[in-house]
């Protein structure tokens, strides 16, 4: 579904990414992990169009998307969440989702101002669909609260809900578990799995929470210092010595029986 080919990106003198290549299969939950500063968010930003890479290509559903603006890429079917939650704080929970429906609807300034019948119809549809999504992510009870008043766990879920409103084929999640406790993380994991299983949406997940990653991912790519150092199933990657060194340092002793899958 998504092919990243030989992407490179530098910021001034700092080489953030070199020769990154990886593939995401349709229907997979693909995790992108690596120590801080490895370039994971930079890669997401390139895929979603916020950054232009220095070289390389990104192919989504057979189409080259590297030089498209974020708005265009979103309309092609890629949606995302952000490392620092980018909700519309001064709007209510339901309104946040409704904005997600924007790209799928078309009432303009003129027709809205004059309250033309098709506008009213579309508005009802937006309301209905948004409530549906809200129920799906179990935030219906927060419908009319201001988004900025929600606890961080719910905010992250809301951001995912908003991404769902755009009817994406692929969703990029940037550290959705950051700041969440164990219960909230489990809940998040459930929702992500449901989105993939029930809505048939492919997921790319940037995460630090290894428990979550190992539990729900089908495939894992590991980045370190802007390069891919491993790519495979969670089990394969876990056992990869380079990965272990990247995270734990050049330790000779690896605790016996270390298994993140418990």
């Amino acid at each position: 579904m998504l092919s990243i080919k030989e992407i490179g990106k530098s910021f001034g003198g700092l080489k953030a990414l070199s020769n990154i290549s990886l593939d995401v299969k349709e229907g997979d939950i693909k995790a992108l992990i690596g120590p801080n500063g490895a370039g994971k968010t930079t890669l997401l930003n390139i895929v979603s169009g916020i950054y232009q890479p220095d070289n390389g290509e990104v192919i989504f559903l057979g189409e080259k998307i590297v030089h498209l603006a974020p708005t265009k890429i979103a309309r092609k079917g890629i949606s995302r969440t952000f490392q620092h939650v980018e909700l519309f704080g001064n709007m209510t929970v339901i309104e946040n989702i409704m904005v997600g429906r924007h790209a799928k609807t078309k009432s303009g300034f003129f027709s809205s101002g004059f309250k033309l019948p098709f506008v009213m119809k579309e508005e009802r549809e937006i309301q209905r669909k948004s409530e549906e999504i809200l129920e799906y992510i179990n935030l219906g009870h927060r419908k009319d609260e201001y988004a900025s008043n929600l606890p961080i766990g719910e905010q992250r879920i809301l951001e995912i809900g908003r991404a769902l409103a755009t009817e994406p084929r692929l969703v990029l999640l940037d550290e959705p578990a950051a700041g969440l406790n164990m219960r909230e993380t489990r809940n998040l994991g459930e929702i992500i799995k449901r989105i993939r299983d029930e809505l048939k949406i492919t997921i790319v997940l940037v995460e630090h929470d290894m428990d979550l990653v190992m539990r729900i991912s089908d495939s894992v790519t590991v980045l370190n210092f802007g390069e891919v150092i491993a790519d495979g199933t969670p089990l394969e990657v876990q056992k990869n010595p380079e990965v272990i060194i990247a995270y734990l340092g050049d330790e000779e002793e690896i605790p016996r029986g270390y298994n993140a899958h418990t």
Partner: protein
Amino acid sequence: MKKGDLTAFLVFVLLIILLPVFSGSNYTLTVGIFSGINALVAIGLCILMGYAGQVSLGQAGFYGIGAYVSSVLSLHGGFPILISAILAMIVAAIAAMILAVPALRLKGHYLAVATLGFGEIIYIILNEWGPGGPSGFGDIPHFSFLGYAVDSTIGYFYLIWGLVAAVMFFSINLIHSRSGRALRAIHDSELACNAMGLNVVALKIKVFILSAVYASLAGSLYAHYVTFISPSSFSLFYSILVLMMVIVGGITNLWGAIIGAVVITVLPELLRRFEELDVLVYGLILTLSLMFFKKGLVPILIEKIKKLRGFAIAKH
């Protein structure tokens, strides 16, 4: 329309209809007319600033375009007034688009100064090349529609406030619509908007054009009412005045724009006795409102009312 807005709208329409009945003096009505004209500009700026989060110190430019284009077309071109006014709005829209495309990439101070520069350039153009130059010109035909001319004070009062009501209807619908949500979302996070597929640039340009068109309409009405115009009415001072109206009334509230317009229009009348102090008092009022009533009159009033209701409920 939400309940609160509907009530407000009905009260508003009622007030418009009744005001001439209770206080029909020519003087009151004239002040009312100018308040209404200013309200139109203020509402447009309010949508731009309070909802979309942009800023403009150049509304006087669009106001001036509305006045001059409509006057010239009807006076020298023989166009019917309505057509002239509509063509003026189109010119203003084009000017807004030309300005908006480069300017809306800027933020904050830079955008403010860019719009200021635009307003000043329009002023200079009107001053140098407008009919009559700095002295302006007259004999502008009164507003007329299908042969029926409006030439009485009370006629203009109803015409202008009727248009304000229509514009408010349009604007309230807009704010509560998909587009209104999009504008508010842009105000909160452009990054997220782009990621959700909103064409942020196009939306910003559209709302900018909207505010320009409102100002242009106001300018045309002004010209056909006073029948004599000169560039001095369309200077930076007017742009700042409109900004004051929006801020004093409450940036995030459309009704605030109307109240702010009324307050700021009525103020000079009250200050007339001060003569040379009027600029100073203007400045002081503005400074004090900005510092102490940051949110604006209407939101503060609403808060006070809510608090009172809270007391009333608590007492029971």
